[in-house]
């Protein structure tokens, strides 16, 4: 089974800056880390390879520093990686990003499964996986908590939708986004860390892919960010209630009444 896992480097801390004109996150020079949900997607892919054989290929779009995150992913067990990096990609929103990733996946070719983390923790949209599925016209299952290979052409996926769990059978190739509850991602072993830098990592620019220039970067991004701001830090006071349950209930009632909540 040939599995592509799309991963994203996200800011390593909350101290981030934004472009004053485009309001996009400034990624250059930023200490990054792998989007935590993507670790679950890689773990799911590596476990599937351990079960049925095949290979795990990482795919990411971002500046050159994203290579560090791809090396982290290869230290977790992925076999190779592709980085899509070009000034022409700057400013791409989820739609443009999904299109570029889809074109790269077409070029990699012969894919059975495409995995994503359920969403990225920087923008929290969860859109790129479904957009890639739509671009490639593939079946998709979001919020997977369990992926079981059925035969060479099918997988069974348990989708955790909060109130209900849905079990679906997908015909391969397919796109799946993975929840954190799906697994406990492995730590990169010291030996795998050393080996990760010897695994193939290919960089593709916009020139290496077949792309419609009007669908990438700022031009291909209908999303307009009006304003970006850090929320004011809020502090809340805690008030202990009396130990005795009756007194505590009375004190709580007094507070609720004083706040006009009753």
């Amino acid at each position, binding site marked *: 089974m040939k599995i592509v896992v799309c991963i994203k480097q996200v800011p390593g801390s909350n101290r981030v800056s934004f472009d004053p004109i485009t309001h996009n996150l400034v990624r250059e020079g930023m200490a990054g880390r792998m989007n935590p949900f993507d670790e679950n997607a890689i773990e799911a892919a590596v476990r599937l390879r351990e079960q049925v054989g095949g290979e795990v290929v990482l795919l990411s779009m971002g500046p050159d520093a994203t290579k560090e995150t791809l090396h*982290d992913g290869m230290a977790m067990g992925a076999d190779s990686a592709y980085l899509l990096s070009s000034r022409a990609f700057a400013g791409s929103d989820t739609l443009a990003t999904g299109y570029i990733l889809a074109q790269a996946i077409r070029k990699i070719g012969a894919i059975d499964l495409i995995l994503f983390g359920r969403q990225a923790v920087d923008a929290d949209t969860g859109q790129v996986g479904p957009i890639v599925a739509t671009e490639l016209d593939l079946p998709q299952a979001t919020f997977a908590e369990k992926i079981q290979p059925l035969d060479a052409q099918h997988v069974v996926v348990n989708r955790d939708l909060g109130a209900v769990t849905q079990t679906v059978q997908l015909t391969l190739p397919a796109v799946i986004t993975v929840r954190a509850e799906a697994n406990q991602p492995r*730590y*990169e072993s*010291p*030996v795998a*860390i*050393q080996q*990760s830098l010897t695994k193939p990592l290919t960089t593709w620019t916009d020139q290496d892919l077949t792309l419609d220039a009007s669908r990438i970067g700022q031009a291909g991004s209908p999303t307009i960010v009006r304003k970006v701001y850090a929320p004011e830090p809020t502090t809340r006071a805690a008030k202990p209630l009396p130990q005795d349950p009756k007194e505590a209930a009375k004190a709580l009632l007094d507070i609720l009444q004083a706040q006009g909540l009753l």
Partner: protein
Amino acid sequence: MERQWTEPEQMLLRMAAKYTDAELAPYDLEMAHTNRYPDGLVEKLIQTGFLTVMLPTEYGGAGFGPEVTAAMIERIAKGSASVAATLEGHYKSVDAILKYGTDALKKALLPQATHRIFAFGMTESTGGSNPMGIQSTAKRVAGGWLLNGNKVMITNGTLAEVYCVLVKTGEQELSVFVVDNSMPGFSFGKREDFIGLRGTPIGEIFLSDVRVDDDHLLGRVGQGGAIGDHAHDDARILMGAVLSGIMQHALSLAAKYANERTALGTPIGQMQAIQRKLADIKINQETTQLLWERAAYAKAQGQPYSELAAMAKAHGSRAAVAACDDALQVYAGYGYSNDYPLAHLMLDARALEIAEGTVEKMRTAIAQAELKKEEA
């Protein structure tokens, strides 16, 4: 001067930090209370590959150098000095076999060092810092040796499966052999009930007519003293790193508490008396870190590092006890309680004024090296 790590070294340190914060630090106080590692902790440590860090790639290891290995130990010690000590005991023993083992022994034994814990038994009830006081022996027999004796206070003793042991092969002659816990005549004794490093198993082994082949001798007959000294040197670099990590832990706790705790309407961290303690902890931590880094750098460069390693441990252990005492004082009454980690951090640090050679012996070695430089 900030050390520039290579990308794999950065990845190792990131992984160790993540692992320590998630898998070790949450159980550190529990280890101090229960005098043992929680179930599964050692297995996961091995499964994640921590035993392989400094083992050369030809034996299935990751082949990281002494500097980043020590930096990783420091980071682990910030979450659990006990676990850092277990790894230190393993690494120093592997180092000794790497330096002094025959090719055949290395090929047979070192691939096992990826998943079996190694240890070094030197101390006996009659001799620790005085190695000639030991009573364990190896007697020549056809094609090998017969080992008898009792080793105590071994780091990882009762946990480790492979042991380097210092024994007498003559009245004034010390040699080191490697024994396996599966050998007939090998048995475990008691685990110590020490006041610090309570997660780390520190215990004894008995050797009763344990027969080993010739190639289980490390180095030459009579070279045991030098091998023991080298193992101590390697251990003392890592001990410096453990001590620096303990102090980072104590400083982090003390500074957080000093920011949160108020007295007379102000956080106690704004009071000069508290600030002085925080500054002193930081100075003690930084000077210890500089010493172990210097010693690890010298080792990586193939330069002499015995004296630097002794300084890292001699300075670092007293500095760490003082630093933890300062941090305990910042916490005041809570610091003196076993419900909080400060007391156990101080007792962890206190162990290293004794283990791997007492600080008194360190100072003698440092002074002798300096005297020798000025000899006529």
